[in-house]
């Protein structure tokens, strides 16, 4: 079976908002019996928070007891649980990374991170050189690390016995993660949605399932809409929040008694600052979660694999924002113990709103020769919190 079918056979899926695609597709199929049948396969997630909690806490405890050496095994098991419980068309996904390969990466990245932290905090003799070299190295290697990480993550993901792959190359990585980020900073954020676009396109266009390549049909305008919505949420919320807090402070007449020498500011000021702090924190979370959720939905609605498969997302970004924010609150209140519940809750909601639409059976893909990938990039992205976007 060919992965790139004859373009004349390839069906033009109806454009338009994805939420409306289902009914329209049904009529299209009914009206045009000659058009290829589109089958929708829903994704599902079968993980249980109780079960995952036990895996999570036992693996954290083992990591602590082994002074961190078990960390790669813990991460692999936790990820294997999520991949293994994600089902598509009767088969589950699998995460196949080798913990030993990750351990090597963790040790290298961890050593650099520790050296940098110690140098900048303690400022021992010659610290500028150490911190400078590590800093320059990190900035110079950042796009390369992202590329390595994407490649490793793809090769470590299996479905139906076939590996995913990422064919990303350095040139593309330095354009979308180097140049685009520099442009975003220099333009004062104006080019930020463009950078997101470049990065998602780099991620998707180079992805492949077996030998079937993925294509990205999104355009930069969509990302500007998301960015502006996020900005509007932040500014609007900030104004709504600042007015009552300032009014409260002025009303209490406490702005004047902020006395550094006398030690503590008055309780009114402390309460005001606390409210403002919590509010800004929530606002930041909402705006950021919105951008994340909307981007995820947008990207999933713009991916095509091998010309025969499209992913589709019907979950609501605002509902995902609510889940993200309420998850954070519950996690804070339970001192982190609700983390497994939060992760399962979010994944279950996302997966219940993702479908794969295919004009060809999902069992007709072919393998591609996959060389092993180094885990260094993966370790770097995890330990240094490099955001890959989802």
């Amino acid at each position, binding site marked *: 079976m060919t992965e790139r079918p004859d373009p004349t056979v390839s069906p033009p899926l109806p454009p338009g908002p994805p939420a409306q695609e289902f009914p329209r597709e049904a009529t299209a199929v009914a009206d045009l019996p000659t058009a290829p049948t589109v089958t929708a396969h829903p994704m599902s997630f*079968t*993980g*249980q928070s109780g*079960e995952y*909690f*036990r*895996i999570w*806490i*036992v*693996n*954290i*405890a*083992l990591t*602590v*007891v082994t002074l961190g050496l078990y960390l790669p*095994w813990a991460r692999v*098991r936790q990820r*294997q*649980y999520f991949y*293994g*419980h994600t089902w598509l068309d*009767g*088969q*589950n996904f*699998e995460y196949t990374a080798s913990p030993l390969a990750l351990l090597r990466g963790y040790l290298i990245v961890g050593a650099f991170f520790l050296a940098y*932290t*110690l140098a900048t*905090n*303690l400022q*021992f*003799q010659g610290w500028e050189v150490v911190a400078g070299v590590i800093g320059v190295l990190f900035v110079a290697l950042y796009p390369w690390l992202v590329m390595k990480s994407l490649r490793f993550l793809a090769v470590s993901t299996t*479905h*139906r*016995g*076939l590996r995913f792959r990422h064919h990303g190359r350095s040139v593309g990585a330095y354009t979308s993660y180097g140049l685009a980020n520099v442009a975003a900073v220099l333009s004062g954020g104006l080019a930020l949605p463009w950078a997101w676009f470049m990065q998602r396109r780099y991620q998707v266009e180079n992805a492949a*399932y*077996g030998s079937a390549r993925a294509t990205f049909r999104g355009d930069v305008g969509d990302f500007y809409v998301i960015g502006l919505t996020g900005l509007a949420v932040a500014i609007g919320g900030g104004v709504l929040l600042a007015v009552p807090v300032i009014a409260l402070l002025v009303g209490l007449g406490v702005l004047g008694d902020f006395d*550094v*020498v*006398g*030690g*503590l500011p008055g309780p009114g000021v*402390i309460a005001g600052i606390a409210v403002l702090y919590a509010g800004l*924190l929530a606002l*930041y*979370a909402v705006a*950021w979660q919105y951008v994340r959720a909307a981007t995820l939905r947008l990207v999933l609605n713009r991916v095509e694999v091998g010309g025969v498969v499209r992913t589709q997302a019907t979950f609501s970004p605002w509902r995902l924002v609510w889940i993200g924010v309420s998850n*954070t609150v519950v*996690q*804070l209140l339970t001192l*982190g*113990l609700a983390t497994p519940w939060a992760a399962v809750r979010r994944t279950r909601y996302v997966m219940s709103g993702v479908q794969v639409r295919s004009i060809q059976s*999902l*069992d*007709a*893909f*072919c*393998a591609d020769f996959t060389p092993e990938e180094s885990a260094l990039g993966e370790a770097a992205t995890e330990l*240094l*919190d490099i955001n890959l976007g989802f």
Partner: protein
Amino acid sequence: MTEPDPAHLTLSGVYFDGRTSRDRAATLEVSGGTLVLRAEGEPETRWETAQLGIDPPIPGIRRVLKFPGGARFETGDDAGVSALEARLGRNRGLGRVRRLESRWGTALGAVALMILFAWGFVAFGLPALARTAATATPDAVLATFDRETVELLEGQNYVGPTRLSAARQAQLQRVFRQVTSRVGGSSPYRLLLRDGNAPDAPFALGANAFALPGGTVVMTDQLVRLARDDRELAGVLAHEAGHVIRRHTLAGVYQGLGLSLLTVAVTGDLVSAGTFAAAVPAALLRNGYSRAAETESDEVAARFLLREYGTTRPLRNLLARLETLDRNADEHSVQGGSRVEDLLQTHPGTAERIRHLRGLEEQARRR
């Protein structure tokens, strides 16, 4: 299904050849060291158990058996695969991990272990590590720290040149030498007298004294004027010398560093809502550490005062005057604050410190 004898068992599941995404219903028959795989539409294949790869078990997920060349067999028959695993001696370590994961008892044990560990680390581990690191830090580093801090204080106009007379300065230096020779420690002590209300200062230090890790003690003119006699100032200087001996400042830096590393490790990232939220408990912990340091230094000062003057009253009075900024105040002018207020303060509440110093004096008298 599972056979009672693990040497002979038949597993049913799905087969993938590793070249296409096609799934085929299949059975795998194990007898002794041989495996026979029968997949629909495929010729029968035989393997040795030695060629077989068995993925470690993950709760609730089908077991995966891998063959050379990328082929795989997936089955829901966990008991059968576990029996095979046990017979072949595979995945022993992660099999044990899986047993831990499958019980609520061990999970709750792990929770208890984590709480114990976190508490032990924050209460004992981190301070001990910081103290060790501070003791091991070479004197040259401490001297650099002092020099740079003083340069910063003077460069940014936090302090100005002292306005005390030369005679008064010389007298205070004598008191300082007397204090440091009695209190002990090998640091190159140095007393800097400075104006705490310098005209261009970003904010006024006012009546204040503080110790840098290398042995430099800075005392402001305002504090000197607040004191009624030199015994009170000797008490403050002994307190600051105590910070130097115990290397509190440096230990504090290390503790802060450890806490931020810990925060990053726990929340998993550098800048996010989680990290900011974690900053509040971290700041409270930091305060707790510095309260412990204040108490320790008060004890050093108390030992000095009790030996020299037989009482800790001079320091108690000066503390009260610092708190009220009233030259006529004494130790009885300070009332204890609320507990919440105490918790939020960097230093132990003044009332609490005065009580502690009085307690130390009574203790010494009883002996």
